[in-house]
């Protein structure tokens, strides 16, 4: 009986000892950051258009599919042909990130492929107000993140049509 118990214990200890010498599987987070996969659903951004125009036409579909109604849009007419080729644009566009589920439905729905979810995941802020992502913030986010995909396919997110086949 005792011998059996001791062998069982030794077996367990040998496993822990083996782990002791194997490679580390942890990361020191704030110093070493993990790069998520291309499909990651992180903070939203606006994808810049081919010629620096705004893609969003304030159609409101993203706000309609959003399960938590965290997108607020106010549309307006623009005279600036270069910036807003379709005339209609979003004068106010804001996402309340603290209510967001990060489901990605807004990205899936957008017919202009304007709104997208980036790979950024560190979103801790000090006040609630900072969690409201306004249009300027989203555009800046897009320019910062999405340099290589300007005008092209959705490279950064790597996600094609999510709704369709």
């Amino acid at each position, binding site marked *: 009986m005792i011998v059996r118990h001791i062998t*069982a214990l030794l077996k367990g200890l040998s496993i822990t000892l083996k782990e002791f010498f194997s490679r580390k599987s942890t990361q020191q987070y704030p110093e070493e950051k993990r790069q998520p996969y291309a499909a990651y659903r992180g903070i939203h951004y606006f994808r810049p258009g081919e010629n620096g125009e705004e893609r969003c036409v304030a159609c409101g579909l993203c706000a309609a599919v959003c*399960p938590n109604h965290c997108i607020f849009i106010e549309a307006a007419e623009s005279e600036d042909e270069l910036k807003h080729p379709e005339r209609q644009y979003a004068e106010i566009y804001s996402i309340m990130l603290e209510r967001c589920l990060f489901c990605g439905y807004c990205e899936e729905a957008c*017919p202009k492929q304007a709104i997208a979810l980036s790979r950024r995941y560190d979103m801790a802020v000090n006040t609630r107000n900072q969690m409201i992502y306004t249009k300027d913030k989203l555009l800046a986010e897009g320019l910062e993140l999405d340099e290589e995909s300007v005008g092209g396919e959705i490279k950064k997110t*790597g996600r*094609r*049509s999510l709704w*369709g086949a």
Partner: protein
Amino acid sequence: MLNMGPQHPSTHGVLRVVLEMDGEIIVDLRPDVGYLHRGIEKIAEHRTYNQVLPLTDRLDYVSAAINNLGWVETVEKALGLEVPERAKTVRVILCELQRIASHLIWLGTHALDIGAMTVLLYCFRERERIMDIFENYCGARLTTSCFRVGGLMRELPEEFEGLVRDFLAYFPARIEEYDGLLSANPIWLKRTKGVGVIGARQAIDIGLSGPALRGSGVARDIRVDEPYANYERFKFIVPVGKKGDVYDRYQVRMEEFRQSISIVRQALDYLPNGPIMADAPQIVPPSKEAVAEDMSALIHQFKLLSKGYKVPAGEIYHAVEAPKGELGFYLVSDGSEMPYRLKIRGPSFVNLQALYQMSKGCLLADMVAIIGSLDICLGEVDR
């Protein structure tokens, strides 16, 4: 009287148990639930069928994909929608991986509660790999939302198969490692054998399901008894225990690891080519390419996504085998775009009811082992 929880490391969340003690022996106990109540069933009444999907992630948040499956299959059943074979197979793969991930959390925390801390670290290391597979596929690690009514959210990425095959090669040896650490360990045996016994008859009466029921020797598994997705295609054994104590439930879940691995392997070998979405334009939105080119597809997309689709009036119950037991969705539709009423049968909630029968007369420390062996998730208990 003793008040355990809601902030107690061994109650797996925010469970509060009010205990009446006689020294170390439990005389009476009353679980007090509801600290994590978010009213998901009520919220679902104001969401379109697609919008309910992300909510189901938040039921049992360590097995989100299986909750997603339960929900989309319920809606598909109500709509009479047939899903392509490829989509079904991918669903099986993801769900079995999710089952392994959920059982890993169970094993880690259960062992931690009883005092074996190393197992927790190993389990989380392995689980990380499954999280990576999910992240690669759907972009989220916990709240996956990875299925859609009619099929899948996206085609499999290229790395997917490689990642899963790596995991399949890597994991079986790890199971043996856990086995070596625990199964014959005298402390583990002392803490689990003969503790929290529940007989088959009583287990059925309470309504236990999943490993908690199978540990008592009842071979009930919805994957076998009422196959969904395409589980009927794959061969696996339903492990059962004999005595219905904590140790038997532990052995059942350990065997389920091996069976899940085998199912994933079979499914990956079988994986047919073909569409991933059902051919049902009134339910499934058009592809992005079609929307970009075709005006009528664009209009259709607008209508479908902003309004949702109608589900025929009627009542539907559909259950899937979640890692914790039978996860059922009872859906009452009044023919509109939103559920009229949704009742979720959470396995954790029902299994928790057995806590009284199992723990009465036990030591307080054994109750911790029993809670661990029931594998409850408070997100699902309270909904």
